[in-house]
């Protein structure tokens, strides 16, 4: 449209010049400007905060799903600290409590070489689990026994069972009903750390705890 307009203007101009004299320049009416939409109300930042908080909550939920309760806690604590008043922050305390409970319930305990005795450190971890289980009576755990690779394959299955049972027995001594615990062994077949050194072996001599019921996820 504008290009047509320009071509038309140029043609008229040339006609005027060719006729000589000082003609009055033609005045053209341009079409009225298109009406702009009304400007949006001024953003006070709350929507942006909601979006950022929601993103953190989504990350927390994803971490919970993946069993990374440390990350879930970090994200939820960030929501509470940085985005108070958002919808996500309103629900964060309950989610944070769930994440902390799951972190406690799934915390690993470790054992010495060829041993199934509960260390002082493991006892503390198990006591914390028992507290959570007492608060959440629907929670049920599978207690897994694992070993490093140095024993024989088959002996390690027996050793893994002994470790898992030792952990379950300790929870039992703290009042947890044995019916809420399933004791299993994987021997050396599910190592946490690869490598043939004490650091890897120490990480692999462990019990893991899997929450199988209780609605905390």
């Amino acid at each position: 449209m504008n290009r047509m307009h320009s071509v038309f203007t140029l043609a008229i101009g040339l006609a005027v010049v060719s006729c000589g004299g000082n003609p009055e320049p033609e005045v053209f009416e341009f079409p009225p400007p298109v009406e702009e939409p009304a400007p949006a109300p001024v953003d006070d930042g709350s929507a942006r905060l909601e979006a950022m908080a929601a993103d953190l909550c989504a990350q927390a939920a994803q971490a919970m799903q993946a069993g990374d309760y440390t990350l879930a806690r970090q994200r939820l604590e960030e929501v509470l600290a940085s985005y108070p008043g958002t919808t996500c922050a309103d629900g964060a305390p309950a989610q944070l409590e769930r994440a902390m409970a799951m972190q406690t319930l799934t915390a690993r305990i470790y054992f010495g070489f060829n041993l199934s005795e509960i260390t002082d450190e493991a006892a503390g971890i198990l006591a914390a689990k028992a507290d959570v289980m007492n608060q959440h009576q629907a929670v049920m755990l599978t207690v897994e026994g694992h070993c490093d690779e140095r024993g024989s394959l088959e002996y390690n299955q027996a050793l893994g069972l002994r470790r898992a049972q030792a952990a379950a027995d300790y929870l039992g001594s703290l009042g947890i009903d044995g019916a809420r615990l399933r004791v299993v062994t994987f021997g050396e077949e599910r190592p946490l750390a690869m490598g043939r050194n004490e650091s890897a072996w120490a990480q692999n001599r462990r019990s893991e705890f899997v929450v199988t019921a209780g609605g905390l996820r």
Partner: protein
Amino acid sequence: MPAALVAVLAGLAPGGVIAQEPSDDGSVRLGITYEPGRAPALSVAPVGAPSDLEVAAREVRLILERDLDYSDRFRITPPLLERVSDPPNYALWNEADVVYLVAADLTGTATRPVLRVGLHDVVYGTMTNVQAFSLPSPASPTFRMAVHRVSDRIVSWATGGQQGMAATRIAFRRRSSDGRSSLWIVDSDGENLTRVETGSADAVYSPSFSPDGARIAYTSRSVDATYGLHEVNLLTGRREEIASGQLLLTPEYTPGGELVWAWGRSGRTSIVTERGAVLSDTGADALNPTFSPDGRQMAYVSDPAGQPQIYVREVGRAPARRISVYVRGERSNAATPDWSPDGRRIAYSALVAGQWRIHTVNPDGTDRRQITSRGDSEMPSWAPDSRHLVFSVADSRGNSMWIADTVTGRSRILTSGFIDELADWSTPVR
């Protein structure tokens, strides 16, 4: 033996296995002394056959020659002649230092060949044994095993009745890269590698042949760590679950055929029988039962002193005596005992300076010998000849399964490139 094969075997043999002094295991007969380089020379002559059986005859000769080589009782010498006269020219063979000459003919039909085999004592210039064997069709999957049985008969003739190990199989588990494992069997010469169907198990363990070699008991673990004890019939493929539970381990048949295994309950693992009897003490874990040929004694792994060691006891009686080395305060570990079929030795693996080594020991704990010295060598199982062991090796070259002769120290690779372990050697296949 062909020079190339000699070279290959020579290349495989050193390093992993320590040559032992000749054992006083009753195997010294007819002046044969089983020492490296001093085994009597044996030659397998070309097998005569009509034209329609020539291919089968060549295969028969190769199987016989390799079996007799793998028996580690002879020094294989290539045949001097394309044809052996009847009787053979003993002087000619004697000049080539051949002590035993195996001469054979394949006759009959392509579907029912008959192998007539004679064993000649070249030194005495006489045929000591001769027998005709009816074989299945060369196309049959049972053909090779039938020829292996002939090899074992030749070993028996040449050694005054000793048991061979050619007609046998080895069952083991193979670990895959995803952490799962499966059950396999292979003939003792490395042929006929076959996977045994085990259903949906995430892992399988500890295959054990029944005394008749027709069945294998094994345990399995599902993804959720439920264990099962199974028996599979190799003839029919039928699989049966015998028990399931928290932990089922190391099944073993007694010489009488009763199934015994380790059963883990409430954190404690004990050795139990099919009939429910408990064969181990209650105060310690116990697993890996293996029985003396008369079934009266049992060797097993237990840890009453804190570290797993090998113990021997009269079945149903206390006390048990330890036969592996335990040094208080040191991280020692012994595992997977296997009682030799002749009852004279128990093989097991033990940690030596942090590495697994195969050992053998008398059942009373005396005369302990370390058999291997390379990498981690574990999980030994005796051949029916009570002199060969199969075991797993992990070293800088990877994982493999080896067979070693405990008398000469000669060894060979059975499988490689996979994590093959928990082997069990069958009785002779009928």
